[in-house]
């Protein structure tokens, strides 16, 4: 099993970042190179199918979606992978002496064959930077969608 890990620091509260990261159906709005994702429930388990920019569909199994720990984990179950586990952690690193909320998002890829960790891991770095970009700008498709989800929940 090979590991690749990337992280970014985002000037936003961890709770706000989690509102995006914790919604599996929003991934394509902040992961460049994923054009769509569909979440479904199957036999009591959540699955997600992503479609990449090259038209490749990859099925995934959602393993963990823990809002308290702010940890999201999924496995790609496509035949090319003997094993895969992706972990996205959103960490609150706001210090006592700082006024601004700050969080760190860590996106880890463990995969076998080893090469797939690099291939997929290269994409995750782009995703983290896009997430950072949207929060820095204060808007973007993922933030807008997360906001819409929150408003719908408030009115629902």
């Amino acid at each position, binding site marked *: 099993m090979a590991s690749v890990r990337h992280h970014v620091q985002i000037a936003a509260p961890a709770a706000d970042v989690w509102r995006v990261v914790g919604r599996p159906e929003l991934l394509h709005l902040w992961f460049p*190179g994923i054009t769509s994702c569909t979440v479904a429930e199957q036999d009591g388990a959540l699955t997600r199918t992503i479609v990449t920019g*090259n038209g490749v569909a990859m099925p995934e199994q959602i393993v963990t979606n823990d809002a308290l720990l702010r940890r999201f984990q999924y496995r790609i179950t496509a035949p090319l992978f*003997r094993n895969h586990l992706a972990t996205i952690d959103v960490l609150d690193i706001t210090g006592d002496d700082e006024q601004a909320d700050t969080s760190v998002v860590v996106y880890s890829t463990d995969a076998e064959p080893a090469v*797939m960790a*690099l*291939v997929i891991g290269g994409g995750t770095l782009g995703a983290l930077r896009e997430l950072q970009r949207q929060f820095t700008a204060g808007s973007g498709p993922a933030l807008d969608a997360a906001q819409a989800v929150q408003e719908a929940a408030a009115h629902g």
Partner: protein
Amino acid sequence: MGRKILFVTTDQQRFDTLGCNGGTVARTPVVDALAAEGIRYERAVPQSVVCMPSRSTMLTGQHPSTHGVWMNGVPLPVDAPSVAAELHDAGYRTALVGKPHFEPFLDPFGKFRENRVAREGLTGTHRGFEHLEFATHGAQGLLHYAAWIAAEHPEAIGMFYPVLDPTLEVNAMGGGDTGAPQARHNEIPREWYHTDWVADRTIAWLDSLGADDDWFCWMSFPDPHHPWDPPKSELGRVDWRDVPLPDGYPESASEREAILDAKPRHWRMWYDGTLVSNYEAPKHWVPATLTADQVREVNALNAIECELIDEALGRVLATIDARGWGDDVDVVFTTDHGEFQGDFGLLFKGPYHVDALMRLPLIWRPARSAGVAPAVVSRPVGLVDLAPTFCAAAGLPAPAYMQGAALPVSDTDADARRGEQRVLTEWDSELFGVDVHLRTLTRDRWVVTAYRPGYVHDGSEGELYDLVDDPLLRRNLWNDPAHAAVRADLVADLWDHQPPTRHPRLDVLAPV
């Protein structure tokens, strides 16, 4: 109307594969004729011995530390400087036909433009090239050649040797007559093979130009890089059973091992199969298992691929002559890096800065209208010098960002214009916890490599070779007390002339 430029690159071709450089296996009359009429460089050195950093150096005129592509899998930023853009801005028509590889090939997310243009049905534009038609080592993938094969000759897709195995590692599967890794008798008809396709598409683009257009065409053949799978119809050109073993291949295993043991540890560890420090060699192939017959067959297949390139280049030059441009075209022929091809009992490439990978074929046939006398240049030059050479041929000053100087047209010119002549080469790789870092200087009769700390190196290791007394680079003089002063001088020179480093460091986004 100015001088037009045909820039011809191959991939992973050794210096000694050309007849004009003393090669005896492949017949290369077209390149030999260019050398006879132009300038043949005897010590052309890459700034990196793998594709992406080296090709990025050719395009930008910068060392890998500066352009930032420090290993394969690191994409060259889309806004990186480009000699093609300089020429295009000056009114040149520009094309890149064949293998690009400034961006990773393994790209499931379609992030990189090189991998998107064919799928989007486009042939332009990128990095200053207005016309793009891409190919790589087979018919798989996302490039124009693969799309053409899929559309026109789908039965040929499976004929090529699969470069990667099902786990996406570089394939170790044996083939050919001897079971050599990455060897295959390819059933594909010659006219469908990528070498002829690259020439065909280059000719088509040249035919589309106006008679008075100035142009810069980078024709980039994917061969003779492995896999060694030329069309089966061509195997009769070179019978591997008749191919002599290369001078660099010690037949005795004990002799090979003694030579390797005098070099830093990762040499012998790779040979024994205990450490594969980079992605570019098959992870599951052990060099110690390489047989003499496999070396012969690999060299034969490689020579066939070199002959096909030579003939394809001949067709392009005939087109240029037919268009009436023959006196106004500069032709530069080179490659991105070399190949072991049996030296020290090894194949492929990696963090090994010796002539197999670092002594490159380089021929410059200046436009006849420039009146440059034929010459052989023995002074060291680098691929970093190519971009300024293209600017000079086009009558443009070299931009300040370029770190090389226009190629000398003779040793006298080199001595007068370039001062102390040193060429730098660098290697950095970090793959799943294994890192290797080398810095190399080629100067005078010496090649010195200093190691920085890494996975199996503590930073005290090095290599020092005397190119004159030891042309096969078998005696590592790094720890020889008699050469301590030479080593100290060269190492000081090496560290004094390191190029500026790009900050922040670019990320590895794929294996290759």
